[in-house]
């Protein structure tokens, strides 16, 4: 085995120094009946070359990657600058553990501090954590946190949350005894906030929402009494959109994949989580804090650890230990590389191109856009013919579009959700519209 350094002679010497004869003697404490029940996998070892060949073959069976991607739903086909992966490939970063020993982890801790700052800036909040698993668990953690603060055992969520976030939230809510009530949707695709129950710990909105529609966050905070306002965001959209902090949100969460991460069939992802300073002690997840060393030099260490499970055990604010540190590093490098200017530019490219395509489709007979609310880079179209047939035709023409079933839970029986990122060229958009036109 190439990963094992010992020679047979090493092993013999080491066994002798321990005072046993056989390797098996070291396993004498495994109960006999357990050892006897063991069954091997029947798996012969393979060479590195064979394994690379096998996985390369498998990767070629993912026909979706050969197509031009128009799927969104929280995960987008964005361009990641080459620099991101170059930094991520430095093994000082990727082969390190959680920074328990800060003196030999200043790289990770400094980057985490930068990440917290960048996410706070982007969302308009006071503080962000060092990451959670993904956008869905971040939303669930936000709901649990809000219910720890307000203790009403109930939260209200928009119907237009991404379906996966909704599923995860319901699972966490069920287990923790937090009831989830749904806020209905207006014809515009926005959330109806006229009748928010007054006994909820929090109101959770997503903007842009699962239909692509940007919610009107102005005045929401006043309308919901002292319930906490949680907003789930798309980080790229905040290159042009006002951050939830401008609307006095209490907690902001989101899926960080657009910030330089590959789509990766949905994992690893990056859970974004930011809040106001007053709620910091209830925030789940790791944070890096600035301090000084024995000589007064600036350094970083994990801070506010009294919230965490190795100190508080069953009273910890969450059980999060391993998170998405390397993905947070990717987002940090991405934002440092594109800068505020690049972020605005890429956000504008998404916005303009999505509207260009939406306008072209709206002109095609037999298609309409059912929701009138403003959108960023994702929107719903409604064909007069069967949406599955339209999806098929687009796939045959080389365009990857999501199946229409995903929209049914939002009352859209026959629609397609279309996402347009900066990677889509005008030629692709025109061809896409042409295929729809011909598909009528």
């Amino acid at each position, binding site marked *: 085995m190439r990963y094992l350094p010992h020679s047979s002679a090493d092993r013999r010497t080491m066994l002798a120094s321990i005072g046993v004869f056989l*390797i098996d003697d070291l396993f004498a404490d495994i109960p006999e009946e357990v050892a006897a029940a063991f069954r091997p996998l029947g798996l012969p070892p393979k060479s590195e070359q064979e394994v690379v060949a096998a996985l390369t073959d498998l990767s070629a069976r993912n026909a979706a990657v050969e197509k031009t991607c128009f799927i969104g739903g929280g995960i987008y086909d964005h361009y990641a600058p080459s620099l991101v992966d170059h930094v991520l490939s430095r093994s000082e970063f990727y082969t390190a553990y959680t920074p328990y*020993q800060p003196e030999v982890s200043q790289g990770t801790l400094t980057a985490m501090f930068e990440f917290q700052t960048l996410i706070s800036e982007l969302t308009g909040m006071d503080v962000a954590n060092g990451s959670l698993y993904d956008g869905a668990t971040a939303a669930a953690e936000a709901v649990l946190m809000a219910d720890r603060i307000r203790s009403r055992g109930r939260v209200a969520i928009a119907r237009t949350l991404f379906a996966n976030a909704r599923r995860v939230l319901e699972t966490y809510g069920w287990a923790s005894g937090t009831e989830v009530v749904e806020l209905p949707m207006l014809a515009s695709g926005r959330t109806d906030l006229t009748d928010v129950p007054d006994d909820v710990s929090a109101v959770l909105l997503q903007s842009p929402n699962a239909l692509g529609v940007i919610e009107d966050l102005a005045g929401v905070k006043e309308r919901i009494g002292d319930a906490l306002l949680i907003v789930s965001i798309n980080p790229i959209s905040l290159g042009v959109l006002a951050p939830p902090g401008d609307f006095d949100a209490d907690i902001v969460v989101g899926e960080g994949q657009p910030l330089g991460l590959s789509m990766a069939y949905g994992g690893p992802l990056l859970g974004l989580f930011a809040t106001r300073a007053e709620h*910091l002690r209830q925030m789940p997840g790791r944070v890096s804090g600035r301090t000084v060393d024995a000589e007064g030099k600036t350094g970083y260490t994990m801070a506010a650890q009294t919230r965490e499970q190795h100190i508080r055990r069953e009273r910890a604010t969450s059980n999060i230990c391993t998170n998405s540190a390397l993905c947070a590093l990717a987002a940090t490098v991405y934002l440092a590389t594109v800068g505020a200017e690049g972020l605005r530019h890429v956000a504008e490219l998404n916005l303009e191109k999505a509207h260009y395509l939406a306008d072209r489709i709206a002109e095609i007979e037999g298609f309409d856009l059912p929701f009138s609310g403003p959108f960023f880079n994702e929107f719903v179209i409604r064909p007069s013919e069967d949406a599955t047939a339209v999806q098929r035709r687009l796939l045959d023409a080389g365009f990857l579009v999501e199946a229409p079933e995903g929209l049914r839970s939002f009352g859209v029986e026959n629609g397609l959700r279309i996402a347009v990122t900066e990677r889509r060229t005008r030629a692709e958009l025109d061809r896409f519209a042409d295929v729809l036109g011909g598909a009528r």
Partner: protein
Amino acid sequence: MKTIFDHPQREGIGGLFPELDVPRIGAEGLIDRALLRSQEPRIPDLSEPTVVRHFTALSKLNYGVDDGFYPLGSCTMKHNPKVNETLARLPGLAGLHPLADPDLAQGTLAFLYELSDLLSRIAGMPGISLQPVAGAHGELTGLFLFRGYFEARGETERRRILLPDSAHGTNPASAAVAGFSVSEIQSNDAGMVDLDALDAELDETVAGIMLTVPNTLGIFEERIAEVTDRIHAAGGLCYFDGANLNAFIGRARPGDMGADVFHFNLHKTLSTPHGGGGPGAGPIAVSEPLVEFLPVPSIEQNGEAYALVWDRPNSIGSVHSFYGNVLVAVKAYAYLLQLGDEGLRAVSEDAVLNANYLQERLKKTYPLPYDRLCKHEFVLSGKGLAEGVCTLDIAKRLIDYGFHPPTVYFPLIVREALMIEPTETESRDGLDRFAEAMERIAAEAREAPELLLDAPHQAPVRRLDQTRAARDLVLTYPFDDREGGELA
């Protein structure tokens, strides 16, 4: 160390994204002005060379497995095979959208299915979910399954989880998040679950027990079957924390020990890197009675094709946005294919050999409170080495000798604990050098304790003021103080 906010900025960098190729309307023409950003976020505009040098400089302040010995107990910091990094970057895998129709994602679904099958057989348990993305996430998911199981049986009064006092800190936290209360079970003199203490807790309010096998002292529970039998007889379920699978992979299976849920840490046992704190992966294996409660979707084989199955009425729902950390799973899969049965058995053999070799040598210098054959790790005590010197000082001094410190102050049942896990990928020479350093540090503690008390001397920073970090929380860059510029 400068942060990215301390470098000189310049405007008009550009060059990453193309110019707009459709007619420009402008954000104000598309979206109500009230919804648009009015103030730029303070994200610096930096040239590429500035960014490269910044992050390269940061990387050099870190210590990873590729830099040297990293005996962090219970974390299994083994070598991360390089081929795995290459495979996870294959465009056909990395570029796959999770909402693509499953028939266009057959390659990825195939290996996820194959990996699930291998994990199921390694655990000796019939059900698998790849959704949990960390060990603690696996714990949480497993406890959700406990909830689902007891709700389905109408035994909703079973809300108590038993935990040995040697348990990982995430165990009680996960139990609490899943809505359980925790009762601690004391260990006996041999460091194992005290069966009398266990019996005293067993009643109809017990949902189950969370065990770590071998336990966090590195000791195999010799009466494991008795423990799990008693829990089952009392109507409870057994959770096995898989952080320590490296001790027996290829030789024994948790399913044969009575486990109902077992989580794998792919980022420990199956060689995927830790990434400075994630992403990891914490798939779970479950016993037959829990299979129906597993998260949706599951991945199933349908003739030649693989499918995502959502229609499972008793499922607890989902615990992740999609299907877990797929690009971590591919690394674990490649690792298993390379090792095969032979390699897996060799892993636990050398892991246990290395731990016992080090234990045998170091117990001559450091107290070993539980002195017996260990598995993949062991726990020394830094107590009583010399007046005024504690475990933290030993840990920091190890940095000066070029080693990553062990896990310290855990498990809680050993005072001044130093928890050492060498893993199978460390050479005998490497182990000897570490042992020499530990012996020299013990001598220094008596003869020149200030070398320990002031350590580290050779790290990028000296010992950091944790009290100040906790008292004056500074968690974001203080832009307003930038003019003051005290930064080194």
